[in-house]
């Protein structure tokens, strides 16, 4: 289902930066998951404690601003956003208000540019645990392990015109975050709030909160578009996405903007974002996915679709480039894109979890190129590699997996198969083409897959005449 521009969507994406320590204190952002163990007087908001800015987090946020082509503020200023909520250690959140770190950026999805209104930094609140579910719990538990983790908030212009465009945007953004190595793609939390309005309701703005991940964003927005189209009357309101039930529900009707009484947090001095600093970061910016796609198409002549899939993950893209130095890029692309991803998908593993590196792939593909192993055998080796890496060349030798290229040996297997399956031979002779496949299968069994079906086919056709 495609929607036309009668749908208007803007996103506010919150993404956890993968620094080792929290934004304003030395507590680790990861590690012990036991509640309230990664805390200190600062992230618990104890009286007398003072925040000290983690410069690494600023560097991460600057990388993102550069990747999104933002104008960068010459000064980093933090404000206090005041509201009372049990997940807030200080009942105010340290965030940025008037002057965000980055402004007026853009991110391309396909051929379309999505405007980035602002990128700013802030601290994560604690997490709330409702032991008996959101509605039923008589009490709520607070875990401050997350309290003070660094976040960036990315706000888009209302440039998105459909739920699937919103999904593409999120996907592209996650790819960028992954390439910059500022976000843990596997464990990091990325959440979005979406503003959505449709023509039928005269573009009445509805905000949907708490959407986690890029798959959810499309689901939530599809639901919301449908709901709004069917509803008799749409009023301005804030709704929440319930992923389990697949619905949005109303949190509050919005009459006026909430007033958070922002003031500057004078516990934190204004940090100058010097050009020298930004240029140093710019110098070390990695080539991003979109550049890689271009390069893969132009330099290696890959199909756009293959290029995009390979470039989506930084590790895979880098592996491809190394493999393509020694192997025909099209063959390399085929094996990385189809076989490797298939096997990873099947075993539910991420590339970085497997220990497979470019040497494994080069060895494997060289054997294929030299016709020393068959595709079948290669695929099986790949499956094993995903479980536990090993030396491919040695493995092939040790297991005797080299392809049977000796014609006389192959002919011997074929002769045996013909003798053992007279009925199939008869059927084939009577014109049943399928019967030959049966005999090919038998030969393949005898060679344990070390021969190519094409070769066997040819020999058998020649023998049965």
């Amino acid at each position, binding site marked *: 289902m495609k929607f036309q521009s009668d749908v208007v969507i803007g996103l506010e994406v919150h993404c956890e930066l993968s620094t080792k320590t929290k934004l304003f204190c030395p507590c680790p952002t990861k590690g012990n998951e036991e509640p309230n163990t990664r805390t200190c*007087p600062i992230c*618990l*908001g*104890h*009286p*007398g*404690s*003072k*925040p*000290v*800015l983690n410069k690494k987090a600023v560097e991460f946020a600057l990388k993102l601003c550069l990747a999104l082509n933002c104008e960068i503020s010459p000064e980093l200023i933090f404000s*206090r956003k*005041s509201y*009372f*909520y*049990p997940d807030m*250690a*200080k*009942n*105010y959140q340290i965030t940025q208000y008037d002057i965000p770190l980055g402004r007026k950026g853009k991110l391309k999805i396909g051929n379309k540019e999505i405007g980035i209104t602002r990128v700013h930094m802030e601290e994560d609140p604690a997490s709330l645990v409702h032991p008996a579910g959101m509605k039923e719990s008589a009490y709520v538990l*607070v875990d401050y392990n997350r309290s003070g983790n660094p976040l960036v908030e990315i706000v888009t212009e209302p440039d998105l015109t459909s739920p699937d465009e919103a999904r593409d945007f999120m996907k592209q953004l996650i790819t960028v975050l992954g390439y910059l190595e500022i976000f843990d793609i596997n464990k990091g939390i990325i959440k979005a709030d979406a503003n959505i309005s449709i023509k039928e309701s005269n573009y009445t703005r509805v905000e949907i909160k708490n959407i986690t991940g890029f798959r959810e964003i499309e689901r939530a927005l599809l639901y919301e578009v449908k709901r709004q189209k069917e509803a008799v009357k749409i009023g301005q309101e804030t709704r929440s996405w319930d992923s389990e039930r697949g619905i949005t529900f109303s949190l509050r009707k919005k009459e006026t*903007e909430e*007033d958070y*009484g*922002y*003031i500057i*947090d*004078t*516990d*934190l*001095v204004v940090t100058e974002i010097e050009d020298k600093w930004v240029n140093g970061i710019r110098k070390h910016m990695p080539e991003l996915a979109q550049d890689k796609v271009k390069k893969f198409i132009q330099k290696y002549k890959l199909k756009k679709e293959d290029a995009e899939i390979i470039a989506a993950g930084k590790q895979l893209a880098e592996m491809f480039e190394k493999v393509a130095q020694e192997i025909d890029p099209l063959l390399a692309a085929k094996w990385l894109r189809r076989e490797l991803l298939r096997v990873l998908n099947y075993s539910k593993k991420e590339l970085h979890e497997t220990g497979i590196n470019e040497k494994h792939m080069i060895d494997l593909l060289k054997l294929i190129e030299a016709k020393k192993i068959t595709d079948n055998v290669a695929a099986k080796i790949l499956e094993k590699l995903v479980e536990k890496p090993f030396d491919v060349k040695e493995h092939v030798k040790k297991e005797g997996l080299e392809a049977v290229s000796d014609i006389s040996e192959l002919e011997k297997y074929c002769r045996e198969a013909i003798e053992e399956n007279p009925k199939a031979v008869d059927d084939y002779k009577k014109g049943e083409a399928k019967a030959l496949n049966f005999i090919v299968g038998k030969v393949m069994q005898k060679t344990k897959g070390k021969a190519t079906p094409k070769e066997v086919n040819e020999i058998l056709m020649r023998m049965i005449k």
Partner: protein
Amino acid sequence: MDTLNFIEKIKSGEIDIVEHTEKILEECRQINKEYGYLNTISENLALGQAKEIKKQLKSKDKKIKNKKLLGIAVSVKDAICVKDVETTAGSKILRGYKPLFDAFVIQRIKEEGGMIIGKTSQDEFGFGTFSINSAFGIPKNPFDRERSCGGSSGGAAGLSQKLKNHIALGESTGGSIATPSSFCGVYGLCPTYGRVSRHGLIDFSNSMDKIGPIGKTIEDVALLMDIIAGHDKNDSTSLNAKSEDYEKYLKKPIKGMKIGIIKEAFGQGVEREVEKNVYNGIEELEEEGAKAEEISLELPIKYGIPTYYMIATSEASTNLAKYCGMRYGASEKLEGSFNEYFTKVRSNNFGEEAKRRIILGTFARMAGYRDAFYLKAAKVRTLMINEYKKAFKKFDALVSPTSPMLPPKFSEIEKLTPLQHYLADVMTVSPNVAGLPHLNVPVGFEKNLPVGMLLIADHLQEGKLIQLGSAVEKGK
């Protein structure tokens, strides 16, 4: 016996540190019964420190003899965190709260052998001029118990007048070091904003809070200042300025120094007895060779009060949000929703002045008022700093009375409206808003009550204040 002599006697063993500490603690208890200067007497901590010092003095380790505060009793304003010692900032909402860590200044004092004897009484979170807005004891003036000590570091100033071989740590946001020092006849130095780390100081107004020493002599003030000043990586606003030996400014001649007498700070609204004594103080400076001349500084006196109260209450209203009975301090019976619960905790445990300032400050930073109040105040603050800076091109220090009045009776204070309360800070708020160091110098007595003179210097010029203060002390 002056402080340095005393420290020598501790080092030589002539005075037994443990016996002395027991004596001091007993003295504190006696004084406290009559005057109410201490919210907590940290007996275990002080005696533990004394025993440790005694042990080290007996050992061969000579390092102990280099400690600059060895055996000196230090009292700590209750808003400053001392590990494992109840720290309430004078508020019921923090009753029972024992910090997990020492403030930077406490670490420094402990390192130099100073003994932490207790937490001094104050206005709740520093909200006051007379130390009457306290959830606990109200400190009484050492010269007349029916009168106020001044605030908000009232307990600190009173104890400095009463207890020997003791220096106090005070804290000032809008005059809370200078005013009580003036009312209690002691020296109180409020340093440049950022000169002393705020790490471990319970916030009132982050952009103005400063920790500083209060002592019976200017020597004591210089000694403690030496120890607490300096950069601290745990406070982002801590200045990375060169360290100074403040004691070298003591007895340094002041001949040729230029003093600006703030014209607007005299005359209308100032009690005549106060004015007379401050002029005497200025004369003493002139006798020592300083040159005094009048200067007009309109902005600070005219706009100091509104500017200060806008910024201070805005910041305070966010700082006080964290007190909701969830993790520390006072709590109430757990029932109702979060909103109902924290409302109950805050209604029952904040004092009236705290509530007033939360309401004022929240109002001043709301959308629609933010520009008119909070942001406007921030702009005026910049203008005030500029006006002061201009004056310091010509003068080494500026002078005014510290308080327009003699220490008032509690019965008189009761009659004041909240606005009249705020107006009593007229002399001190502006240097505080501008982050300028200032010193109260006792200059005389009137009706048996002390009068203080306020000296203000440019940023990081605490040395000049000590130099001038020392000259007045010598003159007496």
